[in-house]
């Protein structure tokens, strides 16, 4: 088990090193990058929209359920919802979902290209396949996942407000007042730091498993599942590490 870890970790580092070489044609790399931005960003927006709204709504309802003391002002609910969403739910929960959506797509796409010899075809043409196929995916994830996390934060807070207002727990004014109370911009920086880290993990780990598929359709499925599991574990581990270091 230990040796397998070092084998994969070493190969993963070599893959990252292999991505950096002079692009054969910058225009084609840019095209590939833009395509990946659309796939990762636009392709995942729907699921991020849905989970963010419900995540905010549920957080408001559960916070209100626990804050039963009449001394605590209702605006505190909004404050708790805001910080919970910005610090944890938006970056981590969104990344876990994206590990499933984006990670499995990257792993299966590259795995299919490997199995059907499309990667070999690119190699024969003299193209650095790690640079052309993996680097744009990682760069796109580094750009789009933080954007999705920010959108998720806004949608989560909005969903929380709507759930609170619709269920009669809190008025819109109280909610807005709570949102402004004791706001720390550092929390947003923390959320962004987490989302960049998670974005890198999701794209690079999935690309590693997809790029190194050996076999057929069954192995593509296995690689896709493994990439999601490993990405999720690493996201949770880094979540803890970053929280311990930065907060």
């Amino acid at each position, binding site marked *: 088990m230990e040796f397998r870890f070092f084998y994969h970790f070493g190969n993963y580092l070599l893959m990252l090193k292999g991505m950096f*070489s002079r692009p*054969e*044609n910058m*225009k*084609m790399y840019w095209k590939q990058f833009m395509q990946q931005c659309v796939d990762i960003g636009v392709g995942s927006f729907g699921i991020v929209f849905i989970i963010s709204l419900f995540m905010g709504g549920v957080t408001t309802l559960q916070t209100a359920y626990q804050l039963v003391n009449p001394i605590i002002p209702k605006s505190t609910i909004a404050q708790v919802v805001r910080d919970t969403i910005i610090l944890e739910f938006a970056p981590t929960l969104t990344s876990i979902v994206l590990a499933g959506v984006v990670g499995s797509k990257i792993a299966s796409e590259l795995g*299919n290209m490997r199995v*059907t*010899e*499309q990667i*070999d*075809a690119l*190699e*024969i*043409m*003299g*193209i650095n396949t790690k640079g052309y196929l993996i680097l744009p995916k990682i760069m796109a994830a580094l750009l789009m996942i933080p954007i999705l996390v920010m959108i998720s934060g806004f949608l989560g807070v909005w969903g929380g407000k709507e759930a609170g207002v619709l269920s009669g727990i809190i008025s819109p004014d109280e909610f807005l007042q709570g949102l402004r109370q004791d706001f720390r911009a550092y929390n947003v920086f923390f959320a962004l730091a987490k989302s960049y880290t998670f974005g890198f993990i999701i794209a690079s780990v999935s690309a590693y498993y997809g790029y190194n598929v050996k076999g057929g359709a069954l192995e593509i499925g296995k690689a896709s599942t493994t990439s999601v599991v490993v990405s999720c574990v690493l996201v949770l581990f880094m979540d803890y590490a970053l929280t311990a270091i930065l907060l």
Partner: protein
Amino acid sequence: MIELQDIKKGFGDKEILKGVSAVMESGKVNLIIGASGSGKTVMMKCMVGLIEVDAGKILYDGKDFTNMDTHERKVIRQEIGMLFQGSALFDSMTVEQNVMFPLEMFGTGSYRDKKKRVAECLERVNLKDAAKKFPAEISGGMKKRVGIARAIVLNPKYLFCDEPNSGLDPQTSLLIDQLIKELTVEYNITTVINTHDMNTVMESGDHIVYMYQGQKQWEGSNKEIVFSNDQLLNDFIFASEFLREAKEMRQHELFSSGKWKEDLKNKAGNPAGGDRQKPE
């Protein structure tokens, strides 16, 4: 011309190529034949650099490919076209975009020139009407032809084909063979084909290398193969009773018509032909 000098390759304890030397000549269709597991696919992958050799040299027109750095290899690879067994077309691109891809990546002319070149290549393989289709919408034979068009779009000096006829009906196989042969002569390409298909051997084998258990067992042309006394080669080529009888009939026919004298003359003019490598 591609020259293999005593190349060896193993995976773990298993030795796949046990010191193979051969010359793949330009303007000719060079075939690598052999049973499954004889090392022909590994040999082809070594030749294009998808697998590194353990020992020996591969020379492309005298340049040592095995000791080249990444940049030098990239230059050589831009002169290589390859047709894969499964065609290896890019699923997300149309036929036209697949053929355009190498031109977009490495070509220097205007977009109009590139489009013109793509149209020429598609016309050459009789696929002009399929330009806007996706690989999933065309047949196996058409995919192979798109693969050929993509392989020749940059005017390669070397063309590699891995099992070009696998999964195709005999008529389509013949068309693919003829197309590859025509292109080889037309552009003076060094073509290397890895095949099991006996029709290809008989139709296109200007130069044939027969591999047996990681070694070159026999080398010659499609004309010489009929007269070969190599038992292993005969067992492989004329595996069925029908083919053995066909071989005898062909020999008899050549003998009766006196054509064997002509063949002997040709053979005398090419002393290397039909040489058998001594097994170690």
